[in-house]
């Protein structure tokens, strides 16, 4: 498969705390890679390094063969990295659809100049983006909620909106930070189905998740991290069978 993301020797420390220690990892199109490890292992930090929230101290991050490690956060999103957040970070004063409309990689209505000179463009793209948003919401059975305030939705649905928002970015890499935390029932099934569909459509997906059965059901490959280092990579079953890792992870 085509390689989407490659990290080579990525290091990052905050003062004395090492969050990434010589991390080397590659993710291909269509893969769902599970990032597992105890709290403080550096999983979310790795997401922050890839998406550009923080810059690495050393090492290279390459997307589609292009080095991106010096790119600011917003440009990495435009380059095709879409991510969700542990605590969702939804735009809480806006409706579901409005949340989605902020997310496309390029949107002409959000520039003062184009506001003045491109009204027609804006109207067209507005309609187009709404249609795209509705299509995504339909896949999640959230069509009815399109115009609801996000904070009025049940928690599981808010998590789905977080995913829907990132799907408006049609880039090649999807980073999901604990998508299943606090999600159960129908929303759980939906989340699983949509993530699987996205990978099947050729996206590279990387998931940080503590829910082992979710990882087992979904991931094609798992990466075990502790103290900023990748300790082992392999199939989910291999990893869960590894004695060293279960000791580290579960403390047994």
């Amino acid at each position, binding site marked *: 498969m085509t390689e989407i993301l490659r990290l080579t020797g990525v290091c990052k420390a905050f003062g004395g705390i090492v969050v990434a220690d010589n991390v080397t990892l590659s993710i291909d199109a269509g893969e769902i890679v599970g990032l597992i490890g105890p709290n403080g292992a550096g999983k979310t930090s790795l997401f922050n390094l890839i998406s550009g929230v923080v810059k690495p101290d050393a090492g290279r991050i390459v997307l589609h063969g292009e080095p991106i490690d010096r790119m600011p956060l917003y440009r990495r999103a435009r380059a095709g990295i879409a991510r969700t957040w542990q605590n969702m970070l939804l*735009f809480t004063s*806006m409706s579901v659809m*409005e949340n989605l*409309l*902020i997310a496309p990689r390029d949107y002409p209505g*959000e520039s003062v100049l184009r506001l003045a000179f491109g009204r027609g463009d804006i109207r067209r793209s507005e309609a187009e983006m709404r249609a795209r948003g509705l299509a995504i919401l339909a896949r999640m059975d959230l069509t009815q909620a399109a115009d*609801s305030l996000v904070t009025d939705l049940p928690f599981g649905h808010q998590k789905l909106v977080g995913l829907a928002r990132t799907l408006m970015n049609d880039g090649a890499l999807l980073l999901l930070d604990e998508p299943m935390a606090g999600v159960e029932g129908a929303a759980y099934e939906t989340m699983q189905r949509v993530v699987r569909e996205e990978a099947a459509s050729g996206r590279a997906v990387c998931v940080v998740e503590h829910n082992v059965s979710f990882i087992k059901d979904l991931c094609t490959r798992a990466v075990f991290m502790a103290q900023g280092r990748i300790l082992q990579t392999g199939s989910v079953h291999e990893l869960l069978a590894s004695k060293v890792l279960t000791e580290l992870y579960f403390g047994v």
Partner: protein
Amino acid sequence: MEYFMSVSVMIAIFVILAASYNLVIGYGGLATVAHPIFFALGAYTAALLAIHTGLPAVLCVLAGAAVATVASVLLAASSLRVSGDYLLIASLGFQLGLLQVIRNFEWTGGPGGLTDIPATITGAARTPAYLAICGAAAVATVVFIAWIVRGPYGRAITAMRDEELAFTALGRNAMSMKVALFAIGCGIAGIAGGLYAFYFQYLSPEQFDVLQSAAILTMVVLGGMGTTWGPVVGAALLLAVPQAITFLDLPPSIMAPMQGIIFTGLVLVFLFVRPAGLIGASGRGAMPAALGVHDHSGDGA
């Protein structure tokens, strides 16, 4: 009548100031107190150009706006990279420092102020003419800002204020959006300054000091931060009500403190009774509803 019109000119100028400040602080969420200094930059630039070059008044005012805009971009570029609290401190330093510069140069008139600003319009029609000009400028400002914060751009502004990190991680350049909002707001304050200079024909540093920051902020908060009409109502109320008691025939020793008491009293009452301002809805959703991107009223919120 002359008196009413003169107060109205003042209200119009402060509507421009309050509305532009609202764009920066209410919509943009940028905590700055330097708005009066951009007002001053516009006023002094326009006045000095009018005195020394004889350029047409319109060009003087536009030049004032340009200087205010450039200065605001300089302040923004240096302080917006760091987060909110730093902007507050940087803007306070900018406000105090630049005013000190104005106060100490000879060509700005120094602490005594700048006089001899050409009248431009003379005769009996002067005040009505200025009222028309300033009134039109105030209406244009309010309409222009309402237009900016509507639609996709306004939605992006709301999103940025809600969750800047998520907004940026979705490919939006929050930094450039803040600089743009700041520059537009401060440029408009520069226009207000030019109008002020030509109408009053006298500028002194005291008119632009940090107390003025408090006054403009009060207008915005009292009227309703992040609303289209809030700054208009706030400016009109806070300028008109203290003026109104001058008709009560009170001795000056009572009158002067009374105006201060009324001003402060209004602020206190509003803080308790309507924290979201006169125009702002109370409770949750007050800010976004004001942005008018979409109506949430049917959501059962």
